[in-house]
């Protein structure tokens, strides 16, 4: 898990992450398709810039959502694990 915390995630070049004003949600756009993201996935991906490590992103999210509690760390780790291995939204630099 420690090694995962030091990974630097970047959005796979096949996807584009953005806010959709008409739909009021973050989305991932890819060739001829779109994933509508829930609020927590949107909040996490907002901090993915190819520079920050997962540990740094977690620190930022803790500051953004002080009320989130202890589950936050595990939620973010689970998200990146799935987003990298299964969904291929995320590459590790």
């Amino acid at each position, binding site marked *: 898990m420690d090694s995962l915390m030091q990974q630097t995630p970047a959005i796979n*070049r096949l996807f584009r992450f953005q806010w*959709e004003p*008409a*739909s009021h949600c973050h989305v991932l*756009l890819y*060739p*001829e398709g*779109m994933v509508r993201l829930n609020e927590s996935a949107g909040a996490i991906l907002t901090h993915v810039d190819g520079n920050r490590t997962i540990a740094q992103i977690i620190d930022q999210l803790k500051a953004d959502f002080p009320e989130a509690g202890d589950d936050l760390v595990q939620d973010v780790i689970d998200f990146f694990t799935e987003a990298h291995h299964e969904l291929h939204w995320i590459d590790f630099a």
Partner: protein
Amino acid sequence: MNCTGSILPDVPNSASEQQHADVPPTPETGQPLWLLAELTYRCPLQCPYCSNPLDFEQRKQELTTEQWISVFEQARRLGAAQLGFSGGEPLLRDDLEELIRAARDLGYYTNLITSGMGLTYERMQAFKEAGLDHIQVSFQASNAEMNNYLSGNQRSFDEKLEVARTVKALGYPMVFNCVIHRENIDQIDKIIELSIELESDYVELATSQYYGWALKNRDHLLPSKAQLVAAEATTNRYREQIKDTHRTKLIFVVPDYYEERPKGCMNGWGNLFLTITPDGTALPCHSARELPIEFPNVADTPVEEIWYRSKGFNHYRGYEWMKEPCRSCDEKEQDFGGCRCQAFALTGDADNADPVCSKSPHRHLITDAQANADKAQPASEPLIYRNRKNSAQLISVQQIEEESV
């Protein structure tokens, strides 16, 4: 817009008061998330399964740059996020760079759907600078001889290979598209190998759908059931073979002729998908022009008006229009009775159930075609290429037939 879930059925303030108790209320209209801009019907290829209307030769008018950009702005405000530049061959529009830039600035994910013919390295670089997100290159087959035969163009294969390599070199995601049919389906292994060699990100192996030119040429195109089963098995074999080494995603689209239930066409009529044809006619799908319905034009009607309130776009929303067997069918909310264009093209009445459905009284039209596809030589007429001469000829024949009725 209808008020779904209303607990006040007696208040006569919405369309729901006119609804009959035997069908569910019309669902709220979705956003037009997908905008398909058919920039032109001009095309250097003559593919016999083209989805353009048969009478494209009579429809030469094209929207101006400003009109297209206005459409992009309007649709974006309604929620459109995906924009496909299609045709015909969209590269034949000299203002394509400008249209891409405008679309990208508005926040669209921009897709160029092209044959690749005439696409130079410089132009692809200019598209990249304008913000183009993705290029889909269509192939007709895995080798020059078959590719050029099917496209009616002698140079097309080599040009496509060059374009596909450049797409990757410039860092675009690449979608390799090949329409699969009777004449090339037995080479699907070679087609997949080519797509992997070209490092495609997505591979669409889409069996042809029978509208427009493809319906005219159906006997040449519809594979037999045995061919289809073999092709799917081959695709699965390659999926397994590359799963640990490549991210290439193989997408095999089965022809609905071999299904028992129709497809939920376009995710519902006027619910997700908005096509604008070269002359500005707005359609709920790219085949709908063949229907005997009047559709609005963006040149004189705002896109919002078209999407939410035009007669054409509301025509098949909800379930009120349905006849039996759809009306009482418990699957109507999944498949919406199938495809209106297919119902019209095959049965002559767009309100009928899609004959692909095994409950349709016209199902024999599909099973007859299946049986015909099992013959060694199913086609008795020559293949008709999609070109201007044939378009003009088909229309004059149609007019003569109409006059003689």
